[in-house]
């Protein structure tokens, strides 16, 4: 009986940090393609963008994949505020020129940028020499935590 009680207490104590952590994080995702560029763009290029945001320190971590581009990557960045079909300002560089897939990195972002992310007003845009305005683009959307019914 005592052992059961202690086990329950231990379980509760160990669960607390993970519960708090789950509440203090957000994931964002985008599917990138030429069709989501505001300017008509013909490219077979595709990509995915996955971001993880730790709300305790606003650390933003990303993994971007892409393929079938017309040439080497020129720029890869997050832009906002802008809804789909509109153009925002570049606020976070994700890779250096010539980077290859997958691109990984992290940076601290601001509270205002977090709000733009949560509003759905940010996108990832990848430019190449042939498409200086952007070859593939994707609007970032909140990825619901597991167990949340969509």
């Amino acid at each position, binding site marked *: 009986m005592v052992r059961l009680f202690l086990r329950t207490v231990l379980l509760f104590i160990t669960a607390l940090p993970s519960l708090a952590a789950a*509440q203090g994080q*957000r994931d964002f995702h985008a599917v990138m393609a*030429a*069709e989501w*560029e*505001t*300017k*008509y*763009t013909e490219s077979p290029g595709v990509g995915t963008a996955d971001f993880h945001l730790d*709300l305790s320190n606003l650390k933003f971590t990303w993994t971007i994949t892409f393929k079938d581009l017309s040439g080497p990557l020129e720029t890869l960045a997050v832009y906002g505020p*802008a*809804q*789909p*079909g*509109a*153009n925002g300002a570049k606020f976070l560089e994700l890779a250096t020129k010539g980077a290859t897939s997958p691109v990984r990195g992290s940076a601290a972002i601001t509270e205002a940028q*977090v709000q733009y992310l*949560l*509003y*759905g007003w940010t996108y990832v845009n990848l430019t190449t020499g042939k498409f200086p*305005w952007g070859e593939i683009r994707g*609007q970032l*959307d*909140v990825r*619901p*935590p597991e167990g*949340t*019914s*969509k």
Partner: protein
Amino acid sequence: MNRLVLFSLGFVTLAVLAHPASAAEKKSLGFIVVDYNLSTYETKYYEECPEGLAIGNDELWWRGLSPKDRDKLTNGGLIEPVDPPRRPTAALRGPNKEDVCWNPEIVKDPPLRIVKGKTGRGMNLDGTEDGDATAQSCKHEKFTSPDGKTKVDNQMYRILGCIYGWRRGNYMEAHPNRERRDSSQGIFLLHVTDVDDERNDPDVTVAFESTTDLLRKDPTGRILPWASYRVSDTPHYGATAKGKIVDGHLITEPVDARLPLYGNNVIGDMIYKGLRLDLDISKAGDGEVYEGMLAGYRDWDNWWDYIRKIEFLTVTGQWSCPAIYVASRELADGYPDPKTGECTAISEAMDIQALPAFVIPRAVKTAGAAP
């Protein structure tokens, strides 16, 4: 001794007869309500909206175009969602360019992103423990308020709480509050009568009135407390509820009521069933503002009429008529239609700010009153 008592009683009786009002005089209280907002529970990082905020009409319109048309109709994104002709065009996304706010069933949008959290503010309107269906309500989920009050009904918050424009301080409600302050339209009065004791009184009467008088303001634009307002002659206002005052809280029993609506360029009424008030009249904040809550079942047809009329705000507010239409039909929780069983009203709670005022009843003619 007995003679002394009889003499005293007689003296008191005579005094009361001579001044009938002094012993049994009832007081009246008045308040004017200009600002009100949907009662919500909002966290900094939107924990209550795990799916994110609602998708707006413009995004749905733009995504529905071919890539060439996306470029052409927005000039490569240079025509912003709020700009003409993009904004009015985006509403016409029915298969034959129908307006989707006035024909919300003509397209099928992704489901509205709604509040999924368990925390919400409001009142227990259906009287149930768990939101199970009753003769007066449809099955729904209840909220628990941040201060621990359980069994809270506020489906309007569930519907609107994850829409950017309805978040506290954003355009959908902040703008109508400003419009009412600027225009003096759409404001309403609370006229409390039969008051014996402003702290505790088991039996008072509260009328929900309208006025067409202009708000009295100081040179800075601040609305002045203790101004006088005449009750409007419009007959469909003036619903009267029995109420009580408990430790300085003015609380009413449910009453069916109309309140004037003015905001976002719409003039009309807000029609409620089972409307009830909880106003803390024991303490006022800055500018003598008293805080309280109005809660009741908003008639769905009446509410939807407002929503479709403000379609020009789907960009500013980031919402879509068809999605909100479907969600509101599904989440309506009050007054089932006897034939279909579908609920015809939505539970709602509003935070109100009330200023003390002198309410001049209809029967009283003042020197300055219009003929």
